[in-house]
């Protein structure tokens, strides 16, 4: 079967990912904020017995090399093998989109221009003459709407047709002034019969653009003597005509004029009854409220507060049920299999551990639903607008908000979304404090301790407070790091404010279920293994002597209470001599100033595997041997009984700041670009966590 590779290139927010969805029915994460599609994503489809493979490149405004997205896109277009460039443009914003198209035309590859969001353009009274545009650019132009799937079949037909056509030479026509100089240089090259792998026109333009590579190559050639004089003269003409000596500006001006001329020529705008209801004017009206200087910020804070309240209160309802189911399952397992090592592994290790993870799935789904809505509606960019003034004071960028708020969900995508920050310093700084934004996996720990400290009815407020406190610590750390470590010039803050869009239910559903599945997968594999490991470490080595001695004592005991007390004592003795207990005890001196006992110390260690395991560990450590029939709130009451309030405060603070989980560290390493940064992160977070907990612990002891 024939097979073609197609790269999709377009500016951010033109509905590129949505178009791939429409073309191939495959799933892509798409959002409304610049650069959500950070990595190239692939999907394929079969049309007319031809295999079409689509490569979705990150959205980019220009083919310059400032941001990582731009670098990735540029590199791919120049260096990789593919059959066709599918340039996706937003029909409602043709002129700006054509600036990128102009740069793509210079690549001389097979290309199709997709006029996406045609339905929206019609609503705004914009009518583009696709045929005229095709003739102007020399590139086939197809009108498509990804939402209504109109024009999709025609586009697929055109793709196959163009892939099978010979490689064209597109001509980006400049103004007469520039064209004249180009032809003068071409004349010299032609007269001298100059041969090169680049054609004469491309060479002439490169010379006028002062391309250093071309200059270097031609410099050693005999033709240079004559050529350099002509180029020199041509440039001088251009300098005079454009009243500037910066060639870059001259060509920018040219491309700008080309885009404007083309867009105006092919667009018919009808001002009519639709004008007030167009997405553009609706956006302006919503913005008049949402980014208003006085009410904008309170509205944002209210939305955030509401999200956390929902996460907790709504999430509480299924939580109780899930906890009950797992407790019943654990009991049933023990009843059926009898009291032996295998049933203990199943019930105390696996079921309890995984149950503790699944229990928090509702909270995580609600939080991610909120974040998905922020992303897909376009509100995220407004938040960056509202917050940049504030963030900038701490050395951060308005765009830092996106990775930081994603950090509330999970640090892994947060580290990845930090790529929207193109300045390396800004990006690293943001990445260093992402950990302060407590991720979804830390939520169970906070829920547990906030419930134990403040009671379930106040836990929502306490939770909000904990998150805010993390943010405050993060900002202070950012300022400190900015002053001492990441010194230097700020990244320019120029950002598109996309139009508001109603979130597509399918898309939001997909984003949320994906997160849910990822969480459950983590629970099913990593956390399951960690649970078994924790169970093993807490049950072994076997201590037959201890067991025998307690068994005799228990048998000899007179009352049931005495028996219970003894078996409880036995469990504690056994646990504290286990591998896990030993590890905890050896390292406890380090954590003693923070008030941690060995059980909490061990939980901190297992939290490095995944933060969800902290609660699972405590589930095993604090409830082993206690009455298993008591299902609901078992862990909560066990923690309340065993951990003093000041230590809870200290523990919350430590968890808030210390190293993220292993998978997050792995992503951090990749994104930061080196192991040395992991070392810095380790030192930074450990020292900060210890100091803050120490202060918090002692303050809490004074106050409580």
């Amino acid at each position, binding site marked *: 079967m024939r097979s073609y590779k197609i790269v999709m290139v377009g500016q951010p927010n033109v509905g590129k990912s949505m178009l791939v969805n429409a073309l191939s029915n495959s799933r892509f994460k798409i959002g409304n904020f610049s650069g959500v599609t950070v990595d190239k994503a692939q999907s394929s489809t079969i049309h007319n017995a031809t295999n079409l493979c689509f490569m979705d490149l990150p959205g980019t405004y220009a083919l310059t090399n*400032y941001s990582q997205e731009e670098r990735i896109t540029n590199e791919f277009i120049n260096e990789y093998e593919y059959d066709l460039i599918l340039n996706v443009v937003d029909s409602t914003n043709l002129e700006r989109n054509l*600036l990128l198209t102009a740069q793509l035309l210079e690549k001389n590859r097979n290309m199709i221009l997709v006029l996406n969001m045609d339905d929206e353009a019609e609503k705004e009274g914009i009518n583009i003459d696709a045929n005229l545009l095709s003739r102007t650019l020399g590139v086939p132009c197809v009108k498509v709407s990804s939402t209504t799937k109109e024009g999709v079949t025609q586009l697929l037909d055109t793709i196959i047709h163009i892939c099978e056509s010979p490689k064209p030479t597109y001509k980006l026509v400049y103004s007469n002034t520039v064209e004249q100089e180009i032809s003068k240089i071409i004349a010299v090259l032609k007269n001298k019969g100059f041969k090169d792998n680049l054609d004469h026109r491309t060479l002439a333009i490169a010379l006028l653009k002062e391309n250093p590579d071309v200059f270097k190559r031609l410099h050693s050639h005999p033709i240079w003597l004559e050529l350099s004089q002509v180029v020199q003269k041509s440039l001088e003409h251009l300098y005079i005509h454009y009243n500037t000596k910066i060639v870059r500006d001259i060509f*920018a*001006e040219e491309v*700008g004029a080309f885009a404007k001329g083309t867009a105006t020529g092919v667009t018919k705008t009808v001002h009519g009854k639709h004008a007030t209801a167009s997405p553009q004017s609706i956006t*302006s009206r919503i913005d008049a409220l949402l980014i*208003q200087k006085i009410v904008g910020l309170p509205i944002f804070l209210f939305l955030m507060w509401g999200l956390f309240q929902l996460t907790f209160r709504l999430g509480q309802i299924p939580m109780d049920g899930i906890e009950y189911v797992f407790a019943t399952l654990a009991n049933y397992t023990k009843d059926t299999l009898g009291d032996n090592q295998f049933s203990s592994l199943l019930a105390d290790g696996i079921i309890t551990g995984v149950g503790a993870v699944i229990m928090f799935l509702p909270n995580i789904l609600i939080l991610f639903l909120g974040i998905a809505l922020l992303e897909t509606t376009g509100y995220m960019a407004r938040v960056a*607008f509202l917050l940049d*003034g504030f963030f900038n004071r701490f050395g951060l960028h308005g765009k830092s908000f996106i990775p930081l708020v994603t950090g509330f969900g999970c640090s892994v995508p947060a580290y990845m979304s930090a790529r929207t920050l193109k300045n390396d310093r800004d990006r690293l700084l943001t990445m260093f404090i992402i950990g302060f934004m407590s991720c979804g996996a830390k939520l169970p720990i906070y829920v547990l301790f906030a419930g134990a400290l403040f009671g379930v009815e106040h836990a929502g407020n306490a939770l909000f407070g904990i998150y805010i406190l993390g943010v405050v610590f993060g900002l202070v750390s950012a300022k400190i790091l900015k002053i001492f470590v990441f010194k230097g010039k700020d990244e320019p803050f*120029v950002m598109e404010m996309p139009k508001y869009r109603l979130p597509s239910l399918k898309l939001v559903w997909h984003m949320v279920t994906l997160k849910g599945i990822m969480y459950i997968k983590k629970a099913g594999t990593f956390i399951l293994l960690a649970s078994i490991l924790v169970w093993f470490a807490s049950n072994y080595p076997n201590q037959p002597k201890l067991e025998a001695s307690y068994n005799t004592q228990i048998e000899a005991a007179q009352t049931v209470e005495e028996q219970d007390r003894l078996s409880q004592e036995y469990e504690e003795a056994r646990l504290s001599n286990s591998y896990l207990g030993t590890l905890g005890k050896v390292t406890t001196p380090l954590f003693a100033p923070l008030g941690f006992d060995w059980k909490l110390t061990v939980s901190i260690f297992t939290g490095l595997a995944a933060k969800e395991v902290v609660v699972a560990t405590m589930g095993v450590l604090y409830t082993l041997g206690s009455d298993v029939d008591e299902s609901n709130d078992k862990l909560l009451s066990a923690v309340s009984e065993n951990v003093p309030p000041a230590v809870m405060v200290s523990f919350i603070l430590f968890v808030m700041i210390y190293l993220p989980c292993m998978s997050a560290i792995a992503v951090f390493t990749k994104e930061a670009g080196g192991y040395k940064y992991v070392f810095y992160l380790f030192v930074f977070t450990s020292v900060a966590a210890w100091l803050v907990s120490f202060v918090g612990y002692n303050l809490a002891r004074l106050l409580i």
Partner: protein
Amino acid sequence: MITLFDLKKGDTATVVHIDADTELRDRLFSFGVRSGAVLSVQEVSLTRQTVKAKVGASMIALRGSEARSIRVIAS
């Protein structure tokens, strides 16, 4: 000479010159902000740290310091 930063909400102006390094100039250009472009200010944040402006069919947000580098004549 006034800059974009000096404009009030609702003002419209034409860009005369952009006084910035190549990076910022390229970035502004890719959004259609170049000499001759018409900008209108849609919103200014409380402390004038950020400005939201409309240029062509796009809406962009810039920082006050960047807005200062765009020289305009009010229209």
